Structure formats: C-alpha cells, structure tokens
C-alpha cells in the first residue's frame, strides 16, 4: 500500500506544506482541505478501533477539533498524516478508557459498514471469505485496545512498522511485541482450520 499522502493530495493547487502554513496562521478552510484528504481513512480507523459508528463519528469530530487547536505546534517532524493519526489513536483510546469497556463486541463487518461485496469467482469461496472476515472482526473486537491498535495499523491499514509505531507512540520493538501478541490471540480465537480453509 502506498503512503497515504501519495494516495490523495490535499488539493490540486496547494501543496500540503502550504495548507499547513495557512492553517497554522488560522485559516480554518485550509485546515479542512488539509485534513479532509485523510478524513475517510481516519474515520475508517476509528470504526475499526471503536467498533461503533456513532462513537466513531463523535471521536472523529473531537480529533479534528484537537488537531485544529494544536496545529500551530505541528513542526513537521513526522508527516501530517502520522501526526493526525496519532491524535486519532490517542482519542480512540481515551474514549475506550472513559467508557470503561473494550470495543463493542459486535464486530463491524462489510454489512454494517455498507461495503461493496468483494469480487469472487464462486459462491462457496465468497461465503468462506465472508465468514473469515466476520470471524476476524469478532476476534479484533475482543482484543485489548493496545493490541487492537497494533494489528489494525500494521495489518489492516498496511502501514510500515516505523510509521505504525510512531502513531501508537511506542518504540518499534514494543510495537512489534504488541503486533505478535495480537496475531497470536486472533489466531487462537479464529482457529487454524478456519484460517487455512478460508485462506486457501
């Protein structure tokens, strides 16, 4: 997966650096264009971490407000996307702690997210893949937030270990440890037979 910044530029005429400078000077429109380029992906991340659409919408608004208030202190030591994602992960974890619970037990699957059905050659294969996605969603929902964050950032989002660790706010070694723990737990929850059968 290419870096997110390469997937969608914030605007056709303004560079990201120019939008950051304008936003830091108080231009809310520039901030919206800058952050809006990442809004869909950020919202998807929050859905995965929180498991609840309403809560994800609330936290997404809070993330944008916190980013807006803090943008004057953004120094470009990381990419803007990394900085914004880190705020999102912090806010998601804060929301989970505040409510004193794990992510919703009911996983958000393709149906709940209204995703288009994946292309598949035969119905049996499609059913196996669909079942695996549901099982994976349930297993992710049962993970503690730190482990869930690790597997979502690295495997679901496809970020590099360096970038994911930076977003999670831990060293790469600590991040790897979380990732491996998360995968072992998910594997145990789903079962090898289901994974191997559906994974082909």
């Amino acid at each position, binding site marked *: 997966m290419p870096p997110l910044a390469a997937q969608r530029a914030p605007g056709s005429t303004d560079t990201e650096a120019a939008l950051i400078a304008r936003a830091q000077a108080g231009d809310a429109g520039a*901030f919206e264009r800058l952050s809006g380029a990442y809004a869909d992906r950020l919202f998807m991340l929050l859905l995965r971490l929180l498991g609840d659409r309403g809560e994800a919408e609330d936290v997404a608004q809070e993330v944008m407000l916190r980013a807006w208030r803090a943008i004057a202190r953004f120094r470009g030591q990381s990419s803007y996307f990394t900085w914004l994602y880190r705020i999102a992960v912090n806010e998601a974890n804060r929301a989970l702690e505040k409510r004193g619970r794990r992510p919703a037990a009911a996983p958000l699957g393709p149906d709940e997210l209204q995703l288009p059905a994946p292309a598949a050659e035969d119905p049996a294969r499609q059913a196996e*893949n669909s079942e695996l996605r549901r099982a994976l969603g349930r297993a992710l929902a049962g993970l503690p937030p730190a482990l869930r964050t690790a597997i979502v950032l690295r495997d679901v989002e496809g970020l590099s270990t360096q970038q994911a660790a930076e977003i999670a706010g831990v060293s790469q070694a600590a991040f790897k440890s979380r990732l491996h723990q998360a995968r072992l737990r998910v594997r145990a929850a789903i079962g*090898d037979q289901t994974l191997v059968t559906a994974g082909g």
Partner: protein
Amino acid sequence: MPSRSDDHRWSQQHLSHYVEGDLGPRARRRLDDHALDCVDCGRGIRAMRALVYAAQGLDGLAGVRAPATIFDRVRPAGAGGGSPSSPNT
C-alpha cells in the same frame, strides 16, 4: 540442545515473527526444521499467513466515507476566534 517439545512451544510462539520476517537466520532455520516434521506448526504457518492476508482485506476505504459533520466542531471555533493556539504554547 532443546527437546522437540521445546521446539514446538517456541515455534508456536514465534509464528508471527516468522511470517513477519523478524527471525534471524538461525531462529528461522530452527522453526523451518521443526515445521518439516510437525503438522501443527506447518498448519500454523499457513494459518498465520492467511490471517495477515485476511486482515489486509479488511481495509475498506473505498466503501466508507467520513461523516459530513466531521469538521462541525472546528467551524464554530474558527468562526468564533478559536483559531489554533499560537506557536510554542
């Protein structure tokens, strides 16, 4: 020299490291050698690869849009003078 049961426990705990490429040559060889004769660990490697592949397939950016309200808390702040805090604050 570790016993077969030691190798098995160790291999089961390091399947993610194996798939991720995080094992050094010696550790990788240890797991490879064990998995040759261990049905569970051979299947575990395939399962871990399938898990990572399936997780990558969960990325549904194309189907999800952020709510139109995502900047609602920014707009009144911007309009009402609540501009970003000044640098070095």
